[in-house]
């Protein structure tokens, strides 16, 4: 595994692609090694905020050496971030976490399920699976609040995309599971990121179908590198670090096999 590092770099561009959803490209050689499902920690400039903000990687451009993040403004930290203009200094720590297991998709029909701000990592994942070409079939199911279908077209370049919206303004009215049912979709393995209720539904669905599911979890973090033990999740087996069924989402995850965690 390549070494993690904190770098001071620059914002290449930023645009608001949906209400409160921002799309930023960052210049960094971390792009060379970034894996789908990994995340960055971004340090606010306003020093009243100490802790880095964990944000998942949406897309990587290895040739140009740049990373893309798509995030929702949820507080003071992401609000500051949303104001960064082209050329603004930005301090990031990366690449963090394990990422999704591409090998698990070999020869399989794969669901990529993203809910809300859990959609972004699905873009790079779809891209990688398409380029590797080892998956039998890749289908994205994305759950949105409304018809502001951010990243849908990007993902459409690499996979079939089915949409669910809470207000029914596009695709299936309801959640991602409703979209799967309505469209009679089938898969042999699932990779998912999104709110906890969605991940629980995915875990249940995978158990019923007897298939594997890999889910990306989140929790309040401090260090982002596995030292503070802040961001743990309950595991079925004893975790390697503390031997107490508490795995560290930032380092043992964020992606876990659904059957290994109690959520």
């Amino acid at each position, binding site marked *: 595994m390549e070494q993690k590092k904190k770098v001071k770099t620059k914002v290449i561009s930023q645009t608001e692609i949906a209400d409160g959803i921002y799309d930023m490209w960052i210049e960094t050689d971390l792009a060379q090694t970034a894996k789908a499902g990994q995340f960055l920690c971004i340090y606010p400039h306003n020093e*009243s905020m*100490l802790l880095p903000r964990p944000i998942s990687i949406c897309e990587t451009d290895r040739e140009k050496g740049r990373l893309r993040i798509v995030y929702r403004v949820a507080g003071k930290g992401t609000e500051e971030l949303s104001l960064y203009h082209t050329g603004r200094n930005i301090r990031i720590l990366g690449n963090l976490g394990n990422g999704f297991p591409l090998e698990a998709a070999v020869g399989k029909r794969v669901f990529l399920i993203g809910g809300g701000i859990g959609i972004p990592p699905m873009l790079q994942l779809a891209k990688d699976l398409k380029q590797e070409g080892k998956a039998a079939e890749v289908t994205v199911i994305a759950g949105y609040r409304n018809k502001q279908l951010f990243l849908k077209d990007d993902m459409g370049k690499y996979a079939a995309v089915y949409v669910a919206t809470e207000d029914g303004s596009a695709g299936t009215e309801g959640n991602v599971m409703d979209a799967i049912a309505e469209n009679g979709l089938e898969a042999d393995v699932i990779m998912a990121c999104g709110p906890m209720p969605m991940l629980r539904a995915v875990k249940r669905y995978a158990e019923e179908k007897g298939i594997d599911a890999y889910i990306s979890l989140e929790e309040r973090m*401090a260090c982002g*590198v596995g030292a*503070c*033990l802040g*961001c743990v999740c309950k595991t079925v087996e004893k975790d390697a670090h503390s031997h107490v069924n508490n795995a560290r989402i930032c380092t043992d995850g964020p992606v876990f096999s659904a059957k290994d965690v109690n959520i």
Partner: protein
Amino acid sequence: MNTKVKIAGVEFKNPVMTASGTFGSGMEYSEFVDLNRLGAVVTKGVASVPWEGNPTPRIAETYGGMLNAIGLQNPGIDVFIERDIPFLKKFDTRIIVNVCGKTVEDYLDVVERLGDTGVDMLEINVSCPNVKEGAIAFGQKADSLYAITSAVKKKARQPVIMKLSPNVTDITEMARAAEAAGADALSMINTLTGMKIDVHKRKFVLANRTGGLSGPAVKPVAVRMVYQTAQAVKIPIIGMGGIANAEDALEFLLAGATAVAVGAMNFANPYTTVEVAEGIEDYMKQYNIEDIHSLIGSVE
């Protein structure tokens, strides 16, 4: 230029250490900093058996600081001896093991197990605000602090550092009790008990409701307590509380600390420890200070 300091006969190449619980056992941060550059690594608290810690959320950011309520999750002394100590021994730095427990027996059990492991010092955590049983209680009453300190001293094969809680009316009363009971050194401050409420959800942010406040926000309280304690006792003090850079560390040294520890700011910048060590050397060069001892307690 001499940056070496001695505490209870143990020599440290420089006064910069890590604050327990913010640096694991060094493994994670060894990807960012050269542990050989540190005076010592102070480990995450270790108990006689594995501890699960508290439910999540365990972390909350506050203005200029953070709250944590980890609850001393740790793998227990067996795994620690077999995995963490050998890892740390690969580096040319001192090893200080933070010891936690719920009863006096718990503490003594761990202290005994560490006796022949070749670690350099023990730091007794009697001030963690995040565990219901024992722990904090030992650190907020002078008589119980005296009792546990003398019990530990009887068993300990290494010099003993008592880590004090700032959540007390008179820090010097606690410091004198620990000194009277034979403590070889003191470390302070542990975290201040705090709380954060999410006004939109109308809920406590931390599952544990309260947590320990650390970070630059608490530094003035920590510097004050180190200064007061340095006036009150003869044993050396390891100062900590919001150290983000060399100037912060120097405040503690000038206030009377013999060494300092970097805590929460490791999270804000994983290179903080080494930057502090280098910054202290730069300061000594700038002011032609030959020996770091001439700085300790030199505020006027």
